[in-house]
């Protein structure tokens, strides 16, 4: 009899085909893998199962007569990025953070914003900051020099084009000039503003200090405290512009807090300063209509040794949230039953299948503890003499994708590649710098769009995916590992606590897609070092690596019953 062991995960569906003859060990024929179609456990996810079975059957020239499923509690996982890039109340101070790679001059100055064309006639009695629109640099410099000669006090200049240094060289190379300022049209002419350019390699100091900013903008002490968000928003930037606005007469609209209700009836705000409680302790989350089993959230990681970067990440107030909810239907089984020509059999609990599959790892013997790190959940399966438990925790590979995507400013699909592959910095068309500081010399030049960019080495042919972020490879690598540690190792810790601990010296086998990631394996091993477990990566049937443990386990358990 030809059977198909099927494991539908949040991200990946796996099918193990085998021939079963009563009284003989199963003949394992193939393991096939594809993306899960629709949400795990839904009727839509049946399509992916049937497609994989068809693909494997075509290769084999024979169709299975029985689908083997695990008896799982169908779960839904969801991900949300809360309050990403939220607008903060800047306390009546408008700010601009020009991208200018080449500002001119150095220092901070405050004055009245004025259009270049208005620098005619009698000079104003106050310092001014001219705004230069998209005109030729020689013409702009001539007009600025004429104004200076006429007695205008120019203290800084704001330039729309990439002409800061050119204008500085022709007017005054010491004046702070910020260029490449988008939307100069929107700067309010006549308003009081402050401009700062930091020395090369440094970041703004005066505009990033709320009291200095308040003094530069002549804010009264009551408004100075309100300027703290504007000051913080400018921190870490080479150049900045701050503009005094009319007092808004009250703060801008408050962000709605996301509240989680716990089993004891208390509530906990879901934000960057709170940590998720133990497994199963969240029973409800405002705005999420589901029967929750678990909820987990994580902020963007902190950049150790880099306060400015840490603040920049914190300011985004981004939180990745994963939830695990109980589904009451048996939609997958029903859909498979309707569309599959043979039988659909529920063979065993997922834990028993995972343990049976992981135990086929060469050298394992019996693997009583299986840690399944997948796309949506980290599952701990324990099958010991005194216990038989399965703990599922919300948040795994897909949540790591979200967090990595938020750090790099890319979509989760691209982030999935960034999570798995090392990065390089293209220093010159011929030199790549790796995450450990080592360098590679190229014999043919790297493409122009990758030069001076952080790139993901994702493709088989070695081509590079250039990112817009200004993170150095070693910094990104630390943030990436921190995300894996917080989410995967953190959730595993929660699962172990929920399982009442694990016996010392016992073998724990890592399976699932995340177990293919050497960084995750080392982060998990490090995080569990104090538990003194033998932590090994699964190699199902000695050839499939940490994949397909449940699918193969179902085949093995079903063979025993024949």
């Amino acid at each position, binding site marked *: 009899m030809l059977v198909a062991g099927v494991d539908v995960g949040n991200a990946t569906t796996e099918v193990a085909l085998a021939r079963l003859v009563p009284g003989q060990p199963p003949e394992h024929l193939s393991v096939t893998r594809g993306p899960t179609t629709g949400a795990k456990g839904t009727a839509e996810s049946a399509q992916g199962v049937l497609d994989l079975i068809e693909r494997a059957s075509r290769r084999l020239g024979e169709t299975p007569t029985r689908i083997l499923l695990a008896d799982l509690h169908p779960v839904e996982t969801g991900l949300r990025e809360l309050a990403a890039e939220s607008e903060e109340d800047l306390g009546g101070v408008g700010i601009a953070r020009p991208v200018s790679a080449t500002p001119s001059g150095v220092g901070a100055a405050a004055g009245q914003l004025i259009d270049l064309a208005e620098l005619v006639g009698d000079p104003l009695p106050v310092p001014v900051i001219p705004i230069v629109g998209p005109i030729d640099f020689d013409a702009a410099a001539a007009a600025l020099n004429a104004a200076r000669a006429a007695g205008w006090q120019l203290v800084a200049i704001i330039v729309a084009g990439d002409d800061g240094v050119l204008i500085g060289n022709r007017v005054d190379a010491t004046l702070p000039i910020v260029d490449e300022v988008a939307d100069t049209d929107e700067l309010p002419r006549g308003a009081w503003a402050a401009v700062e350019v930091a020395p090369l390699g440094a970041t703004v100091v005066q505009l990033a200090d709320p009291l200095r900013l308040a003094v530069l903008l002549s804010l009264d002490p009551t408004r100075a405290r309100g300027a703290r968000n504007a000051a913080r928003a400018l921190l870490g930037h080479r150049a900045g512009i701050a503009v005094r606005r009319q007092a808004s007469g009250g703060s801008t609209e408050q962000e709605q807090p996301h509240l989680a209700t716990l089993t004891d009836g208390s509530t906990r705000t879901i934000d960057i300063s709170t940590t998720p409680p133990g497994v199963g302790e969240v029973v409800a989350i405002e705005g999420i209509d589901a029967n929750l089993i678990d909820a987990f959230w994580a902020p963007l990681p902190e950049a150790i040794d880099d306060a400015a970067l840490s603040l920049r990440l914190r300011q985004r107030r981004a939180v990745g949230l994963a939830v695990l909810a109980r589904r009451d239907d048996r939609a997958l089984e029903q859909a498979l039953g309707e569309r599959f020509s043979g039988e659909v059999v529920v063979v065993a609990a997922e834990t028993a299948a995972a343990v049976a599959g992981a135990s086929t790892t060469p050298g394992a013997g019996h693997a009583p503890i299986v840690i399944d790190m997948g796309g949506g959940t980290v599952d701990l399966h324990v099958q010991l003499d005194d216990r038989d438990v399965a703990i599922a925790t919300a948040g795994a590979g897909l949540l790591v994708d979200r967090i990595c995507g938020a750090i790099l400013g890319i979509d989760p699909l691209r982030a999935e590649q960034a999570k798995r592959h090392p990065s390089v910095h293209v220093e010159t*068309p011929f030199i790549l710098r790796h995450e450990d500081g080592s360098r590679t010399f190229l014999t043919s030049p790297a493409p122009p*769009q990758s030069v001076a960019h952080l790139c993901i080495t994702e493709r088989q042919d070695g081509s590079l995916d250039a990112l817009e972020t200004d993170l150095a490879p070693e910094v990104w690598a630390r943030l990436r590992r921190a995300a894996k540690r917080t989410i995967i190792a953190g959730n595993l810790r929660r699962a172990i606590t929920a399982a009442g601990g694990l016996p010392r010296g016992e073998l724990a086998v890592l399976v699932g897609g995340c177990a293919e990631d050497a960084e995750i394996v080392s982060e998990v091993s490090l995080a569990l070092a104090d538990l003194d477990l033998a932590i090994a990566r699964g190699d199902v049937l000695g050839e499939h690596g940490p994949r397909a443990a449940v699918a193969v386990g179902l085949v093995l358990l079903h063979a025993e019953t024949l």
Partner: protein
Amino acid sequence: MSAPAVVLASADAGLIRLVSAAFEEEAVPLQILAEPISARAAAVRSPLGIGLAVDGAELVVALSTGTDDAYLHGPVSDARLLGRAAARLAARRPLGEFAG
């Protein structure tokens, strides 16, 4: 010729002004050769191994090593942006527009 500089081979005053402005903005030295040589030949003459020259209706940025093909190219009317990309290439900054 040992000062580090990118070499522009051109005698066109308008083009020279635009490319020179781009290099001044990026604070990267540019040397002008009023000789009718290719961008590749200009790159070989550049201590930084980067050269620019007009080829037909295009401004070409070439490297002295690795490839005989243009590293960057575009219409002469975009001389300011191509000059900026060439200067940034020398300064190891992201090239911005005209990196494609």
